Each structure stands twice: as structure tokens, then as C-alpha cells.
């Protein structure tokens, strides 16, 4: 890959450019707005695919990082009687590795499909596409940023467009849902900010030039944090005499930061009992936005928990691994049992998401290579599956004006194509081998089984309940006699069928040939896991 082209920045900023172009277009030009929206969603996808291909060929060559100093703020030196300067430095630091690349691809694919599915948006196209593209920049940024402050900013960027996208284009209870979403996630962000500040103020202290005595800087650069953690010498070199006021990274401090991060990302994933906000989003947001929400935004929580929770705090995580696994099992069973009794299809899917995210937690709790790979695989797979499911929900709602299970039925006769795809998505969701869901579940359970046999065995029960709620709801919609009112219903149009077939094909591909992603993740975890093992031992 040409070294001089800043791929990562292009991926992140292309949607932003699109958003600006959208602003410049007149608002009546719905066709042009739509085209702009789709084009600037597809470009990052193509770039991400290119990145994926070039990453495979030159895995160890490096060059997948972009770093510039972004902000440098000199700090007040009065307290410290020293010659060298002390400053606060924030970097514009983007990087990609085997852990973020699958999620980057997921973002590209799901967002493109969601852009195509936005045909059902019927008002204020200009604002819609502006917010949509802005949201996209935020999501790409989250998966690429390697500076705490930059990560935080991108994370926050996703909140505001989401707030409006739910609140303006959603269903009847949209405004309440939007407010709940914003406040709940705002709390999570507050916790994250607090944790990040602790990290910057303690772990972030480093020397600007290696080996020199100064100048000293506080930084949010992820690599520096990781370096300071893995090499205890680096932080210890900073003699207490040099910084009388400096706070050191004590165990209490670690625990505080770890728990804050767990709460912050736990809200996003979501972990029981922080899940009620996402039920509202699933039912009230427009389907194209739920595709993004369920498909990508929840995975930001997973990614954050792995990147910042597992890699920065492996000791804390391993001593809490049972707690995390119990939470995961609760998520699985709680979500699954509740999904079995819902009358609204979107709520079935929402609770099913909670259940599936529980499997991700099990994978993380294992702190095993198989489990962590499983967690990410399950995230990608669930992203594709839930995007597909909500795509169909949107198309069904357009035709039937309802998503209540008892008002639907017999659609296999009316819309055989869509019903077939719905059945496929359902089977993928219940973890049928040969489709992507199985691989993620299998790896997660496999990873955890080594250390926690009973909890895994209980978690496996979720696979049974998944069969119950998926078949109950999908068969209710498609099987059975067809009511009169559905006669003459049209099956999927090309613009609807295209994303459906694409997503379905990817789900099959990932189910049959998992190496396409696992090799990548393997590479991403390679060095990191060894570090974790030594740090947990030490």
C-alpha cells in the first residue's frame, strides 16, 4: 500500500466531507442528497476493503498508523522547581490492527446497507444525510483513534447525530427514546471521561524524547500508556523527588479507572441492568438507524472494553473474570427468556441482542485467545445479522404497518423472497453452523470453558432459548395461513433486495470460511496476549 496516502484519515474524514457537501446542496434535491449520502458511505467502505487486502499481504510491515501532535498545552510549572518544562500533549493518532480492522469493515458494510435502506426516510432528507454522515465519521474514528482524548471526542460525536436521528425520524415514542438514549449514554461518557483523566494524569506521564531528562509531558497516547504499563521501569524512573505532586498509578487508582470503564462500556454493550435504554432505541428509531445502532454502535462498547479494559487492566479483569462471566450469563439468559415472551418483533430482536452480547462478555471474561477472538467474531457476526434483521423489519413495516407478532402471519406466501431471507437471518441468529453466528458462539464458549465449566454450560442453555424465540417469532411472521389483507403485496424491490442479499452472503461466507477474519484477529492478538499473560502473572 502506498505509504504516503493517509488511508486512516481518509476513511474517517470522508463522511465528514460528504456531510459538508450535503449542507451545500439545496434541500429539495432529494435524489442528489441520497446519492451523495450513499457515495460518501461507500467510499470509506472501499477504502476499508483496500486496507483489509493490503493488511493481509503486508501484515508485519507496519505502516498502518498515522500520528501527529494535535494540541500541546504548557502546564504551570510553579510547583515544580525544575528546569525542564511540563506540558499536556494530545495527539491525532490513528491506527489499525487485527482487532479493529474487522470492526472497521463491519462499520463500512453495515453503514452502506443502512444508507441503501434509508429509502424509507420520507422527510428532511438534507438533515438526515448530514447527521448520518456525521455519525459515520464518529464511528470510524472510535475504531481508529489511539489517543484517549481523540477517542472520547469521536465517541461523543456519535451521540448527538443519534439523538436527532432517533428523535426526528423515529416512531411514535421517538422523543422520549432519544432523551433516554442521550442521558443514559451521557452518563456513560462521564464515567469514561473520568477514567481517561485518571489515566492521562497518572500513566500518561512520559518523557518527550526517550532517554532524555525532559521535557516531561502528560499524554493520552494509547501506545505510551501501554508502554508505561508493560514496562514498569518506565514509570518508576520518574523519581518522586522530581514530581512532588504527581499522583502515581496505585492499585486503588487502577480499580477505580477499571470500574469506571466497565460502567461506561457496559452501558453501551449493554450489560444488565444498564440495558433499558437500548430497548427504546430498538423499538422507536427508524430501521435504518437501528441497523447502525444494533449493528455497530453496541460494538463500540465491546471494542472499548477489550481495548481499554482488557489490555490496560488485565489483572483487574482477570480477578473479576468470574463477575464478568456471571454478568454475561445473566445477559444471555435474561435476554433470551424475555425475548421468548415479547409480542413486538422489534423487542424480540432487542432482547436477543442483549442475549448475544452476553456471549461476547463470556468471550472477554475468558481472557483466552479463543474467547477474545470469539468476542470480536461474535460482534461482527451479530452486527451483520441484526442489520439484516432490521433491514427486513423496515421493509415489512412499509408493507404491513405493523411489527406486532399476532398481527402478522403467512407472509411466506405473500413475500417469499423476504421471508426466506428472514428465515436465514433467524437461523444465523440462533447459531446454526454454516452461518456466522455459530463461529462466534463456539469460540466464545470454547474460550471460557477452559476456566469456567459450569458457567459456560449454563450459558450454552441460551442456544436453546434462542431457538425458541427465533422460531416462535419468525414462524409467526412467515408461516401459517395468509390473512386476506396481505394479498397482492409486492416482494422486495431491487434496492431492498441488494443489501439483503449482500448481508446474507456475508453471513454465509463468515460461517463457512471463518479464517478470513480469524487470521487477522490472530495477528492482532499475537503480541498482546503474551504481554497480558506476563502482566497477569507478575
Amino acid at each position: 500500500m502506498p505509504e504516503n496516502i493517509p488511508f486512516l484519515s481518509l476513511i474517517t474524514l470522508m463522511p465528514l466531507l460528504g456531510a459538508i457537501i450535503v449542507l451545500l446542496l439545496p434541500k429539495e434535491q432529494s435524489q442528489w442528497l441520497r446519492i451523495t449520502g450513499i457515495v460518501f458511505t461507500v467510499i470509506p467502505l472501499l477504502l476499508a476493503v483496500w486496507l483489509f487486502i493490503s493488511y493481509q499481504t503486508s501484515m508485519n510491515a507496519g505502516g498502518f498508523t498515522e500520528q501527529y501532535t494535535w494540541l500541546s498545552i504548557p502546564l504551570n510549572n510553579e510547583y515544580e522547581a525544575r528546569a525542564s518544562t511540563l506540558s499536556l500533549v494530545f495527539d491525532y493518532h490513528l491506527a489499525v490492527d487485527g482487532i479493529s480492522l474487522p470492526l472497521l469493515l463491519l462499520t463500512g458494510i453495515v453503514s452502506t446497507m443502512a444508507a441503501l435502506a434509508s429509502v424509507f426516510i420520507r422527510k428532511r432528507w438534507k438533515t438526515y444525510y448530514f447527521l448520518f454522515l456525521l455519525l459515520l465519521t464518529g464511528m470510524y474514528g472510535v475504531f481508529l483513534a489511539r489517543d484517549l482524548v481523540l477517542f472520547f471526542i469521536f465517541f461523543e460525536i456519535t451521540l448527538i447525530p443519534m439523538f436527532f436521528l432517533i428523535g426526528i425520524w423515529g416512531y411514535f415514542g421517538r422523543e422520549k427514546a432519544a432523551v433516554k438514549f442521550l442521558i443514559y449514554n451521557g452518563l456513560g461518557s462521564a464515567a469514561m471521561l473520568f477514567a481517561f483523566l485518571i489515566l492521562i494524569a497518572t500513566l500518561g506521564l512520559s518523557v518527550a524524547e526517550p532517554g532524555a531528562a525532559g521535557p516531561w509531558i502528560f499524554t493520552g497516547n494509547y501506545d505510551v500508556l501501554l508502554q508505561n504499563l508493560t514496562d514498569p521501569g518506565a514509570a518508576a524512573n520518574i523519581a518522586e523527588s522530581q514530581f512532588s505532586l504527581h499522583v502515581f498509578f496505585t492499585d486503588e487508582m487502577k480499580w477505580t479507572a477499571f470500574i469506571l470503564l466497565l460502567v461506561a462500556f457496559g452501558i453501551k454493550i449493554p450489560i444488565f441492568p444498564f440495558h433499558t435504554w437500548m430497548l427504546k432505541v430498538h423499538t422507536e428509531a427508524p430501521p435504518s438507524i437501528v441497523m447502525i445502532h444494533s449493528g455497530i454502535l453496541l460494538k463500540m462498547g465491546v471494542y472499548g472494553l477489550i481495548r481499554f479494559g482488557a489490555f490496560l487492566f488485565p489483572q483487574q479483569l482477570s480477578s473479576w473474570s468470574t463477575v464478568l462471566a456471571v454478568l454475561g450469563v445473566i445477559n444471555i439468559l435474561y435476554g433470551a427468556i424475555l425475548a421468548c415472551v415479547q409480542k413486538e418483533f422489534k423487542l424480540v430482536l432487542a432482547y436477543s441482542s442483549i442475549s448475544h452480547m452476553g456471549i461476547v462478555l463470556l468471550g472477554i471474561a475468558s481472557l483466552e485467545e479463543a474467547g477474545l477472538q470469539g468476542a470480536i467474531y461474535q460482534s461482527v457476526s451479530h452486527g451483520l445479522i441484526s442489520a439484516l434483521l432490521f433491514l427486513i423489519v423496515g421493509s415489512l413495516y412499509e408493507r404491513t404497518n405493523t411489527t406486532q407478532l399476532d398481527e402478522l402471519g403467512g407472509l411466506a406466501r405473500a413475500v417469499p423472497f423476504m421471508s426466506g431471507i428472514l428465515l436465514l437471518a433467524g437461523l444465523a441468529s440462533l447459531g446454526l453452523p454454516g452461518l456466522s453466528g455459530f463461529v462466534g458462539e463456539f469460540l466464545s464458549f470454547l474460550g471460557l470453558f477452559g476456566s469456567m465449566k459450569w458457567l459456560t454450560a449454563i450459558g450454552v442453555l441460551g442456544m436453546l432459548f434462542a431457538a425458541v424465540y427465533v422460531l416462535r417469532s419468525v414462524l409467526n411472521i412467515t408461516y401459517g395461513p395468509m390473512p386476506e389483507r396481505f394479498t397482492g403485496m409486492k416482494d422486495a424491490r431491487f434496492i431492498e433486495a441488494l443489501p439483503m442479499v449482500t448481508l446474507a452472503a456475508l453471513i454465509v461466507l463468515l460461517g463457512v470460511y471463518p479464517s478470513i477474519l480469524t487470521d487477522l484477529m490472530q495477528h492482532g492478538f499475537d503480541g498482546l496476549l503474551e504481554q497480558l499473560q506476563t502482566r497477569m502473572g507478575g
Partner: protein
Amino acid sequence: MSTFFAEYAWLVPLFPLIAFAILTATGRGAKRAGAWIGTAATFLSLVLSICIAVERLSGTSTDYIRQIDWLQVGEMTLTAGFEVTNLTSLMLVVVTLVSFLVNLYSQGYMREDDRISTFFAYVALFTSSMLGLVLSDNLLTFYIFWELVGVCSFLLVGFWYQKPEAKAAAKKAFIVTRIGDLGLFIALLLLFWYMPGNALDFSSIHNVFGTQGGVIATGITTLIALLIFVGAVGKSGQFPLHVWLPDAMEGPTPISALIHAATMVAAGVFLVARTFPVFEASPAAMTTVAIVGAFTAIFAATIGIAQNDIKRILAYSTISQLGYMMLALGVGSVTAAMFHLFTHAFFKALLFLGAGSVIHSVHTQDIREMGGLGSRMKITAWTFGIGALALSGIPPFAGFWSKDAVLTEALNKSPILFIVGVVAAFFTALYMARLYFLVFAGKPRQDGHAHESPPVMTIPLIVLAVLSLFAGFVETPFNGWFGEWLTGETADHHGSGLVMVVSVAVGLLGVYLGWLIYVKGTISRDIVSSRMPGLVMVLERKYYIDELYHLIFVKPLYAAGKLLEAFDEYVVDGAVRLTGRAANALGRLNTRLQNGQVQSYALTALIGIVILLLAIAGRRFW
């Protein structure tokens, strides 16, 4: 000694898979051309399977294994691969042969259906998955295909999706078998973590549990064996997970023949046979298998007497016969189990296809509404009769020899198991006699003109009838060639005259009794139901197992769901809302304080000072 054909064994499942892909891509438009694509693909698989089997028979003794990496996790590699052994080559032939005949038969049976190409697509996918399962060289690949055949069965049971019964049956089939699948899944995890080198392939399993022995603790071995068995119980419809199989008869009849009688349900037996060393290493597991098998055999046979739906009688008979196979495995004889599986596949497929031919002709499944069909459907009647005699264990039909082998092995182990098997054999003969005489003998009980089915349907019947006649001769008490070829061990053939006499006697007794009741009328049909109405009721309602499950599983799950729903709404979300309201209320309170009245500000300030003073004073006591 060549492995020429074995190297191409992967093509066997591939042909039908390609057919499935073509049929799915062309959709419903393919119509009858689609049917021929499916049939042709299965035919190719059949030819190749026969070539492989002939190659094995001609003296190739080395197993052929080929593996590819499926995915890699750290140091561990999960592989996918196929393996050709005598056992798998036998299964390949059975599956492709029955599948081909069923494909052919369906050309006639499904002719009127406007989704005929979808039907053949599903059948092709099923055939492909089943062949993949048979060829799998390790438990993970096996599990993947295991689930795929399950989903195909689900799709085909619910093929007529507009019927509410089909929808319910499909759902039930999937969920009940999934309970078993979970057992197998956990067994897979256990094996992965306990096997040296995380190996999951069958030959390593054979080595670790068989020849080496003692590597894995007995407790764990028993656990693994029992969990594998749970999977087999689910798939093979053994008690207590048998409830899905009779309901699965809602699917088209050729499917009942292919999936729910001859091939897929036998996968449970095949699984146990494939992982047999694990069972052999655990006496407790072996006993469990034997008891469950024997119990299922007699349990299902008794239900079979009281059913009136022709397909359901055959379904219970399948459950019962699978019980015999499990019994054989439990008493330690893979040969007897596989032999019975082999013969059963032919005569049970024959019976189902014959039943389909009858249903096709009279448009009812209730045997009380049939009668006198023997004269009008000669080929069906003759072939069905052969199947019924084979199932009843009357010599020289195939079922006699294999059942005799099972009973001989049971007697060697325990007389009780033997007696249970013999009693079940009596009931089997009785319900088959009842079925046959009610359908084909006597006077017609319906108007209309029943007619013989077209040749495309009768030819498969004739082929299967011939097989049901002669397939038993591969292994007789006088000739142990089959077992030797299958297991590579020369067993001592103690053909027990006692077993043979007893088993023929009970078979003939059952048939004679059926003849007395249903043809001659010497014994009144109501003799049992008038004296013990309760017993008949219990049998008709299948021992109330469905009702019991509804009471102890379905209802509690639903109740738990409702309870948690309320908890989620009022406790979890209630706490969230309360937090929101509390913040709001606090804000309002503070707004009230900013009322512009100096007195209230002074009061606030005073209260604040008091609190501060108290706090400072209180510090002393900390």
C-alpha cells in the same frame, strides 16, 4: 488396495450441494426441471458411493483421511476433513441409495405441488449435509453437519407452511432436537479441553479412549459419553426426547421416509457407533444406553398399537426400532446395531413410501377409513407386505436377521434386556398386522376409486422390497462376513437356536393375533378397550408425555418470561426512571430556593453554617 475413489469422496456431498445452489438461485421458476436436477445429482452421488464401497469391499483396508485447516486459534488448529472407512462407505451407500429412490418417488408424489423445486432443493441440501456428516473425520465437522441435517428436517417438516400443524411440528422438531444438540455441544467442549493436543478427530478419540485408556478420568469419560448420548437421544428420537418424531409426520411422506425413518434419525446411532470407544470406557454409560434403548423399544411399540394414523404408527415403529439399535450398542455390539440400521433403512423407507402411495391414492391417513386396498393397489400391497414382514422379524426377510443379531447380543448381556426386546418384538408384529390388515384386507371403507400409483413411485417400492428381502443375508448366524468387514474383528458366531425360535415365535404370534382380530374377527376388537378403557386412553394419548412437558417446561418458561418482563419494566427501568425523577425533583427544589426573599436565603445560610459546624465538631470522633 487402492484409494482411487476414496480420494474423491468429497464429491459425494458436493453434487447435491451444487444442485441445492442451482435450485435456490433459480427459485420456483425451475419447476419440474428442478426436480430432475436434484435427482440427477443424487444419482451421481450414488454411483460414486457404490464405487467407493466396491473399492472397500475389494480389500482396501487403509482408511483414507484428508484434512484442511478450518480456523486457527493461537496454537490450536481446528480442522475440517473427511474420512473413508468401511463404516462410512456403508453409510454412504445407504444414504445415497435411499435418497435417490426417494427423489425418484417424489417426482410422482410431489408432482402437483407448485413449490416442487423448493422441495427438491431442500432434499438436496439434506442429502448433502447427511453425506457430509457421514464423511466427517472429526467431531466438530460432524456437529456442523449434524445441525444442518436438523435444519433441513425442520424445513421439510414445515414444508407445507400454511398448515398450522406443520408449523407447530417444525418448531417442535427443531427445539426438541436442539436440547440433544446442546448435550453434544458440551461434550465437544469437554473433549476439546481434555483430549491431549485438543484433538477432536475420531481416530484420536479411538486412540485415547480405546487403546491407550486411562488418559482421561473415568468420571469425565462417563460425563462425555452421556452428553454425546444426549445428542443421540435427541436425533434418534429416544425416550424422553422422542416427542418430536411422530409430529414430524406433518411433512411430505417422502421426507418421512428419507429423513424420519431411514437416514437422519439413524445419525444418533451412527454417532454412538463413531465414538464407541468413549462408551466402552465407561460401563455406566453403556448401561444407560442399553436401558434407554430397550425401554424406548417397548415403550414406542406399545403406543404404536393404539394409533390410527398410518404415518404415526410407522413413526412410533421407527422410534422403537431405533431403540433396538441403541440396545445393541449398549450391550456392546456395533455390528448388530449397524446391521439393524442397514436393514431398517430399507424396509422402513419401503413402508413409508408404501404408506405414501396409499395416502396418495385415498387422501386420508386414518387407517380406520381405509380397507380392501390390496386388490386395487397390487404392487403397493405386495411390497408393503414384504416391508411389514421384515419389520415383524419373520424369516427370511432382512429384519429377521438383524433383529436376531440384536436379541442374541442382548441375551449375552442380560436376560432382562432380552425379554424386553422379545416383548417389544411381539407388539411390533401385532401393530404391523393391525396396520396391514386394516389397510389392505377386508372391504373398502371409502367410496371413490383407489388406484395404483404411477411407475415412478412403484419402481422405488419394488427396489426397496427386493432389498428388504435379501439385505439380511450379509450377516447371518452362519456367516459373520458383515461384522468382520465392518469392525475388522472376527467375532465368534454363536448363533443361538433359542433366540431364533423365540423371536420367530413371537413374531408369528403377533401376526396371527392380528389376523384373528382384524380379519377373522374371532376376537373382538373392543375386547381390550371395553375392559380397560383407561389403558387404551393412556396409549392413545402417548402416555401423556406431551402434556407433561407442556406442564413442566413450556408453562414455567412462559411464566418466568412474564415475571421477568414485569421485573424489567418496573424494577430495572423503574430504578432508571426514579433516578431521572429524583434529579428533576432536586432541580425543582433548588429552583424554589431561589425565590428572591432575603429571609429564606438567610435561613439557608444559617442551616448551612450549622451543618458545617457540626461536621467540623464531628471530625474529632472519627
